């Protein structure tokens, strides 16, 4: 009922509510906009090249190519979010799987996994992504080109690989802590199989901790994607916020708004993700303090 929902909402602070609202809005845009709108984000407004915001019906202005910034941003929301969600989702799943198994089994396997995680984590995210993209998505010679979809795929792959040890470490640490609890010994003494213990006891307790960090990771990935674009190896052709940002960089002197608006979108999204992640973490801390 409406009153019930309102009551639930009141539990959250204003920043949290705003964060949920923003994420809901861009989520909706990502799903709906490219289907609904019939207009092409790459439509060139020949009379309005490089105009500022609020001119001639262009809310965010246009860039020097004549593209409407607002349209580009709305259109690019889908790919940006897709990349982030897939990278964190798949990377998180793989990382958690490895981390949980490693933390539960311990011994030599855990030592090896730990070394691998540490090794990958010690490479700066951007350098790693750059290397992967360079290897997998660069044409062997100057004349042939690599397809756009391949570039997108490689960017997602690189970011996924970066996320795996980040969330994997969290999962492993949480698993180490939870598998020491006496209810795990109790389950073993009852004759529960390891698979049952992992699935019924460890995973449900570890997952919330991982989820809290996963939200933060989404923000990190969006920024990373933007950085890759600025380095020239990100999503091509202005189809994501980072790409729009990168494309507008050269013309910053004349049309700064081309850069400001993507930055605002990215910043709002990252802040919202951080806020939600923080709220999840706080409620976890409170719950664990009682235990």
């Amino acid at each position, binding site marked *: 009922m409406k009153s019930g929902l309102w009551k639930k909402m009141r539990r959250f602070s204003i920043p949290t509510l705003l964060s949920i609202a923003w994420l809901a809005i861009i989520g909706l845009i990502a799903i709906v906009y490219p289907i609904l709108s019939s207009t092409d984000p790459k439509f060139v407004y020949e009379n309005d090249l490089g105009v500022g915001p609020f001119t001639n019906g262009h809310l965010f202005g246009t860039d020097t190519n004549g593209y409407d910034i607002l349209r580009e941003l709305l259109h690019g929301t889908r790919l940006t979010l897709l990349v982030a969600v897939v990278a964190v989702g798949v990377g998180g799943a793989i990382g958690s799987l490895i981390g949980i198994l490693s933390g539960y089994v311990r011994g030599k396997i855990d030592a090896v996994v730990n070394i691998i995680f540490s090794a990958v984590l010690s490479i700066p995210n951007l350098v790693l992504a750059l290397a992967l993209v360079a290897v997998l998505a660069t044409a062997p010679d100057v004349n042939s080109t690599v397809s756009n979809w391949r570039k997108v795929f490689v960017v997602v792959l690189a970011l996924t690989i970066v996320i795996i040890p980040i969330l994997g470490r969290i999962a492993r640490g949480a698993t180490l802590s939870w598998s020491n609890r006496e209810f795990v010994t109790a389950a073993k003494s*009852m004759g529960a199989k390891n698979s049952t213990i992992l699935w019924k006891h460890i995973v449900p307790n570890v997952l919330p901790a991982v989820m809290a960090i996963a939200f933060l990771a989404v923000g990190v990935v969006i920024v990373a994607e933007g950085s890759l674009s600025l380095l020239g190896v990100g999503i091509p052709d202005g189809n994501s916020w980072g790409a729009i940002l990168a494309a507008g960089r050269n013309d910053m002197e004349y049309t700064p708004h081309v850069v400001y608006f993507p930055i605002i979108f990215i910043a709002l999204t990252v802040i919202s993700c951080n806020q939600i992640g923080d709220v999840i973490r706080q409620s976890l801390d409170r719950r664990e303090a009682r235990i």
Partner: protein
Amino acid sequence: MAGSGKAHLRKSDDVILRVEDLTMEFPAGGKNFVRAVSGISFDIERGETLAIVGESGCGKSTLGKAILQLPKPTSGSVNFQGQELTTLNKDALRDIRPAMQMIFQDPVSSLDPRLSVGKIVDEPLAIWNRGDEVWRSNKVDELLNAVGLDPALVRDRRSYEFSGGQCQRISIARSLALEPLLLICDEPVSALDVSVQAQILNLLQDMKERYGLTLIFISHDLAVVKAVSTRIMVMYLGKVCEISSPDELYSNPRHHYTHALVSSVPIPDPNVAARRTTLEGEPPSPMDPPSGCRFRTRCPAATDLCAQEEPQLHEVSTGHYVACHWPRS
């Protein structure tokens, strides 16, 4: 004093658990290892309550878990109902598990905070696929009632909503679900208030009678143990000091360590309290235990012999065994 020596092992048909020369070692950095339990032997007859008493670090908790093979002891034998547990393969061991259950010291950490109480108590039944859902639901209600909790109020709530004493009741209910023969209680009341302790101790007694259990009760508190046990084994630094019946042990402790333990129990009587003697110093590190008798560094009666030769358990009166070269008289 030594854990070696099997003078106290009995031969009757009622013995359901027989532990011989049990040793438990843990790696402790580099090439060192810690012997938490050193060559301990004891047995327990059906229907007994054996109390294992000692300070923190004496190895009693490790001993309890080693009996259950969690993890397997480094060496020694654990014979349960005629079966040698240390040599069983994984599946055979698993099949025996329902007959031996354990309850733990920390009432809250023994329960999965994510599960409802009903699910927690049902878990052992679910693992072994006992009965159908209706039967299991009734069984859970029966168990919760048996431990003094109202199923309707308790089933759907989570463990963190309950007090320590109530959590311990839930643990007990869970451990009884598979109708075990042997119940090992690892410091079950140490984390509880004195008034709640009494309730849980009474509950354990009741459950023992109702379900025909044999109990191993591990504790550091002599007074608590006296109320529930039929036989007491005192441990120090991984070895056995003394074994006897409770009344005999308290009125006539022959080992110097037991005597110090008995004297340390706080007596709620201001006139008596002032005269207590206290044990000096700290237990030595289990990584580097004293040679010969391990208690000699804190013993008022230690001699050179105690440093050279480890004392063996010998009978000083019927059913009363001591491992000491110079037992008190």
